[in-house]
């Protein structure tokens, strides 16, 4: 699915990722955890192709293609989806219009005809249920005036509509109460399949109670310093990140 080798990336000349390796196979769910400032969100942004982030070294192969060379939109069209930590508001552009444009752009890239409007609407109705999204929100402007929970649910709804092969959830749990968290996680779980993989970036373990990962990685100082089964998340929850930090520092010495 995606293979990341020795990835170095910097923002405004400051190196954030310092040789990161990660291999995700189809159907797998990988959780990336780590203390604040360890580079978790940077990883999500770099994979999605945000311009402010410069890849200085390393390679990323996504479904056999060199991801780094692709534009942000082509990465999306290839099936990479980023659920934003802070979803963007676009005033005046309805959610529906936005999604339809996105779907048709992706279809065009794949050499398909535009989606049939009726089929599209049926799809909207079906997928809304997945995250218990109010039908009215679909007609509102993209994320404008949405509550924090609605924004996150809207991200998962969009993911359901665009059917990516790799979903990257960037701190999707931040700012969610327990009910919203459950809804969002259920939505994601329904989208799990043998062909679809997820990278779940989170600071807290609680999201992983709902979205159970196959692997947990600890990101610290721009590198993955520890990898383990799902139980690692519990251990982190209990002991915090300090022991990881000192281990990593000792290893570096």
């Amino acid at each position, binding site marked *: 699915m995606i293979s990341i080798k020795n990835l170095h990336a910097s923002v405004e000349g400051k190196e954030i990722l310092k040789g990161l390796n990660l291999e995700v196979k189809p159907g797998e769910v990988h959780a990336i955890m780590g203390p604040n400032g360890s580079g978790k969100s940077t990883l999500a942004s770099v994979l999605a*192709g945000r311009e402010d982030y410069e890849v200085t070294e390393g390679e990323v192969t996504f479904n056999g293609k060199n991801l780094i060379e692709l*534009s942000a*939109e082509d*990465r*999306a069209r290839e099936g990479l989806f980023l659920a934003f930590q802070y979803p*963007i508001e*676009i005033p005046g552009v309805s959610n529906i219009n936005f999604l339809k444009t996105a779907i048709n*752009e992706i279809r065009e890239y794949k050499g398909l005809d535009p989606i049939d409007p009726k089929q599209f609407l049926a799809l909207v109705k079906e997928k809304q249920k997945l995250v218990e999204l109010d039908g009215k929100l679909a007609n509102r402007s993209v994320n404008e005036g949405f509550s924090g929970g609605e924004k996150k649910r809207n991200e998962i709804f969009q993911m359901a509509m665009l059917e990516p092969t790799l979903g990257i959830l960037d701190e999707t749990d931040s700012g969610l109460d327990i009910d919203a968290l459950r809804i969002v996680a259920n939505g994601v779980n329904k989208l799990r399949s043998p062909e679809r993989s997820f990278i779940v970036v989170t600071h807290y373990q609680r999201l992983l109670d709902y979205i159970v990962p196959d692997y947990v990685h600890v990101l610290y100082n721009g590198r993955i310093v520890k990898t383990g089964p799902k139980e690692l998340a519990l251990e982190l929850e209990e002991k915090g990140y300090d022991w990881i930090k000192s281990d990593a520092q000792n290893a570096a010495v």
Partner: protein
Amino acid sequence: MADKNEILEEHISSEYKYGFVTDIDTEFAPKGLNEDIVRFISKKKNEPEWMLEYRLKAFRHWLTMEEPKHWAHLDYPAVNFQDISYYAAPKKKPTVNSMDEVDPELVKTFEKLGISLEEQKRLVGMESKIAVDAVIDSVSVKTTFKEVLAEKGIIFCSFSEAVHEHPELIRQYMGSVVPYTDNYYAALNSAVFSDGSFCYIPKGVRCPMELSTYFRINSSGTGQFERTLIVADEGAYVSYLEGCTAPQRDENQLHAAVVEIVAQKDGEVKYSTVQNWYPGDKNGKGGIYNFVTKRGICAGSNSKISWTQVETGSAITWKYPSVILKGDNSIGEFYSVAVTNNMQQADTGTKMLHIGRNTKSTIISKGISAGKSNNSYRGLVRISKGAKNARNFSQCDSLLMGDKCGAHTFPYIEIHDKSGVVEHEATTSKIGEDQIFYCNQRGIDTEKAIGLIVNGYCKEVLNQLPMEFAVEAQKLLAVSLEGSVG
């Protein structure tokens, strides 16, 4: 940064698609302006004496006026008024009764512009019918659906025809909203106007279709000086559309029109325009000088006038569609999208003059500046003494694309009555890089993303346009702004 500039560059080079010239046999007046030319125009049009007198009075007044240059936020070389031909007309009969008599080149011209002069072609269904008055250079060439409208007592014809056929209405209303003394260009227009549209909706009649005038400058070395007069009598309603284009030429051509609207008691006029005059090339060569006076009066109580404009063209635009709210409970609205690119300059806005009681006005202005252009909103809201409970709300937003353009807001607010409530808000923003990235991440490329975001930004205004026009306006916005992001 380099990427952005490339995209900007691409946008700047996007072509004006109405820049063709039609080869029509045309008759001109000699260049220059004096009383003889005014008489020549009047004679050409076989006008009655009172019309000539009006023109001459306007001309003599114009001679005493100074060209206004200092107050608008515009910069352009002086216009040489003696180097313009004030009359140009296709040589074939200016008014025609059937399609067979129209110069085939002309029919082609309008078809290229997406305007069909053949009624049959437009009879797709009663709902979407639009009656068209086509004005090329100085004269109206064809008005469609006249008979259908006549059955309801609606008059929709060229201005010249109205001077002959309905002198009482013309004499009553012409100059009643925009007197020839109003301003320099209104005076000039009153002296040399060549043609335009007249429409009158009688008492209690709702006009069953959109009325539309399509203006086209074709000849070089000419100016276009048309006049439009729309009267909605008591309880009448009309939705009126105006479109305009001009060929791509290296010279600057002057367009100085006058539009007058009168809404009597309970009358309503909705005036929509998509203005797409040739804006000049990317170095600012050529393009139309668009110096237009548009004003309506809500003369009677409960009347309403609504201006909606999408401005994408012209080298220079100087235009403030206004409403005099004289009748009690009358309503004035102004919805505007003004796009400037390359070297274009626009100084546009509105005036809402509250005189009657309980009058309301709304101003929504969306400016978009790109390239090296300058885009100014200039508006006046005046609550006169005695205009009890007047209300105004204004929202003026500017969107900047790139770091070489300018966006300016000059709202004048004058309140002379304590019961008035006036609110004005303005913001300036650019298209956020995060918004574009968000779209990209969903598979939408940057070009399309900008189109989406700009259309979203203008939505409140575009929603005001009749369906056919809204589609055209959206396309126009997309064409003129694709890829221009900073």
